[in-house]
């Protein structure tokens, strides 16, 4: 009999985090810092003051959304690498709508902008999704290649029609006050985008785990043939998951425009779409996992900038940790195995007939 070991998912993820700390200790030592102190600065310090704690939530907001977007698509077996572009389209829509709704009260302006951003993200996801379900064209490359196109679209707008008329900078005009996301706590940057992110994750969890739609989506992702055999319309499921994923990524863009920058800039996303892949993978494609992973990376991001000040470790280490974390997680998750059921009772003689169990 082959040796069977228990390699459950949470254990492997925790191992991946530890392995990442081990690997990134090298660069930290290179920077002349003590790794233990560094990790304390990265992970613990941000949680010790109200300001930094709120900043953790601010940093987590966009990646909670992109993480959920990526996780939903991946669960359906649709490899959406395009959350970055979908986020940018959401940001474009938010900036466009946000500058036009100045006459509306916030109670109307905000929903219009949020829905518009979600639709824009979904629209950006539509073409690769159609190509996949209609012609079987692999979505990895098509979704990926639309990311630079979206960035070019942003830059084209900012260098062209949307250039700030007053300053001449490549930034859009400031959105109307009624379109700005209200902050949740005074003198902090925490905006209602965070609540939207939590609500999206909660709803996504409910749909995935508790509804027939969610079960169909999971079945389609785990075994397209088996799902189709059971009468599930796999194409429609994939299309729905892809559009939902794009819409949620679009919401991340809305949050950054309406909650943080209040205008479209070319640096609106420092790669939140790609970080979404890290969050989704680290969260093992489950919504509670995405929530934890998003907060963890938010913590890390705030920690990285404070450690840069206090310990002199360049804040770019945050990106290193993200990349290494993604690699160690998928590397270790390949070792995931089922616990095999004991086929025969332990009392059975070793030379028994082929167990019928």
């Amino acid at each position, binding site marked *: 009999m082959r040796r069977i070991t228990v390699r459950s998912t949470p254990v492997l993820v925790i191992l991946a985090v530890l392995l990442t700390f081990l690997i990134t200790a090298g660069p930290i030592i290179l920077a002349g810092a003590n790794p233990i102190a560094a990790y304390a600065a990265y992970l613990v310090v941000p949680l010790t003051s109200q300001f930094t704690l709120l900043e953790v939530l601010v940093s987590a907001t966009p990646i909670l959304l992109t993480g959920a977007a990526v996780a939903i698509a991946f669960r359906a077996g649709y490899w959406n690498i395009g959350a970055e572009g979908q986020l940018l389209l959401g940001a474009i829509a938010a900036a466009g709508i946000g500058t036009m709704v100045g006459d509306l009260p916030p109670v109307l302006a905000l929903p219009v902008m949020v829905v518009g951003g979600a639709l824009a993200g979904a629209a950006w996801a539509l073409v690769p999704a159609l190509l996949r379900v209609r012609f079987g064209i692999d979505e990895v490359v098509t979704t990926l290649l639309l990311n630079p196109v979206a960035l070019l679209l942003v830059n084209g707008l900012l260098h062209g029609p949307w250039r700030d008329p007053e300053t001449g900078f490549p930034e859009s005009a400031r959105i109307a006050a009624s379109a700005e996301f209200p902050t949740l706590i005074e003198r902090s940057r925490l905006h209602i985008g965070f609540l939207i992110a939590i609500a999206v994750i909660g709803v996504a969890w409910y749909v995935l785990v508790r509804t*027939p739609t969610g*079960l169909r989506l999971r079945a389609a992702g785990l075994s397209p043939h088996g799902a189709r055999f059971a*009468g599930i319309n796999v194409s429609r499921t994939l299309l729905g998951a892809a559009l939902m994923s794009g819409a949620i990524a679009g919401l991340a863009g809305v949050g950054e425009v309406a909650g943080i920058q209040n205008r479209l800039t070319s640096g609106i996303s420092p790669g939140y779409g790609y970080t979404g892949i890290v969050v989704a993978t680290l969260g093992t494609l489950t919504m509670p996992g995405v929530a934890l992973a998003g907060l963890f990376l938010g913590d890390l991001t705030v920690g990285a900038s404070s450690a840069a000040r206090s310990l002199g470790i360049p804040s770019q280490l945050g990106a290193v940790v993200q990349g290494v974390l993604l690699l160690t997680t998928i590397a270790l998750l390949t070792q995931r195995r089922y616990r*095999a059921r004991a086929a025969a009772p332990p009392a059975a003689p070793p030379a028994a007939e082929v167990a019928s169990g």
Partner: protein
Amino acid sequence: MTATSPALELRGITKRFGDLVANDGVDFDVRGGEVHALLGENGAGKTTVMRIAYGLTQADAGEVLVHGQRIDLRSPRDAIAAGIGMVTQHFALVAPMTVAENLALGRATGLRLDLDDARRRVADAADRFGMRVDPAARVENLSVGQQQRVEILKALSRDCRVLILDEPTAVLVPGEVDALFATLRSLVADGLAVVFISHKLAEVRAISDRVSVLRRGRLVATVDGDTNERELASMMVGRPSFGVERPSDAGPELREPVLRISDLHAAGSHGLEALASVTLDVGAGEIVGVAGVSGNGQTELVDVLSGMRAPSSGSIVVGDTDLTGADPTRMMAAGIGRIPEDRHASLVGDLSVAYNLVLERLDDFRAGGRIDGRRIREHAVALIERFDIRAGPDDPVASLSGGNIQKVLLARVLSRDPRVVVVSQPTRGLDIGATEYVRSQLLERRAAGAAILLVSEDLDELLALADRLVVLYEGRIVGEMPTTGVDVDRLGMLMAGRGEAA
């Protein structure tokens, strides 16, 4: 060591896959200048033992000797170096490449790609063994028989002294079989040792000097090649007789047809016609067996009836409902229960037993907008009990043994009281206990009045369960007969495509 040592010898080869013992202490040897056949039914472990000899599969126990020297086989590279060549059932050829490129592959001597050498070897083989093939042709443009020739050439070009052929005739048309046998005879005359894996008695007798019979992973006997067919057959199938058999009652003479298939045509995966004007009725309380050598349209027939493949013309009717081109959902709604040969792919392995049991009809298990977890669990517990599934409701299906996976599929289908059951290779790879169970369940459905279409390569299974048989050959029904008092010779001729000669 000495010239008298066998070219290839296997000692005590044992291999397990999970709880299935594929090989149990198999001893086998083949000498230069002989064809040694390895005979056995599907699933007897013939292919596994020879994959081990070629380094494609690692044995759990036992040793492999070449000319008396023990060798360590970690990959085909080691086997090739030891002078062993194998032509597997699925050809190991790179389709978009030319014949010469395929021959040159893996023969690296530095960077130089010696296609001239490959061409010379092709010409040489044409002269010596009469095997003709164009070295500049792309493999994907060759016929199956020609591709097989390329595979043999590939082995020969590595100077192999032992050539293993896994079911080489399964993919050939009769004329090609004769050509293959002529080739094998000239190879043996040249001193090669040939291992010929087959489950076809006539072919084995026609080509072999010795025959080893494998049954359920164990070597039964090694006998001379001219041993008569009856004796070989009894060694091959001489299993403990199964307690499960169709009751001898012939049932009502005029059964009302429930499933009516008429003039059905369908294309196979490669676009070629795989089913041609299949017309067939299955009555209530009747099991119709579909016999035939695999690859003659069985898979496509089951796929079409499962809603997984659209027919190109013809019609499928259940009761009064026209189901031509229906999707799986409509097929199920009309009362067709489907148990295809690839049972793993027909379930979702990473989902739990409970979810798999309701996946076809989630809408029956919802409470408002959500799935009713409690009822799904109760349903699963009840079916696990009723169908004797050795698993918990929350276990992922992929963690179950083959027999239990089949029982999950069986439970999902039969618990819905289907009017029609379409079932293919229901007991392939299962142990005796599970086999008997599956067969008894099918007979129970028959007694309950279901119309059952049973596709199987296991003739004994067909004879034990079916009321009548149809034979599928090259996508057509070439014969039909009742199972009582069946003429096995005629059946064999029909399966071999010799209907008219009988």
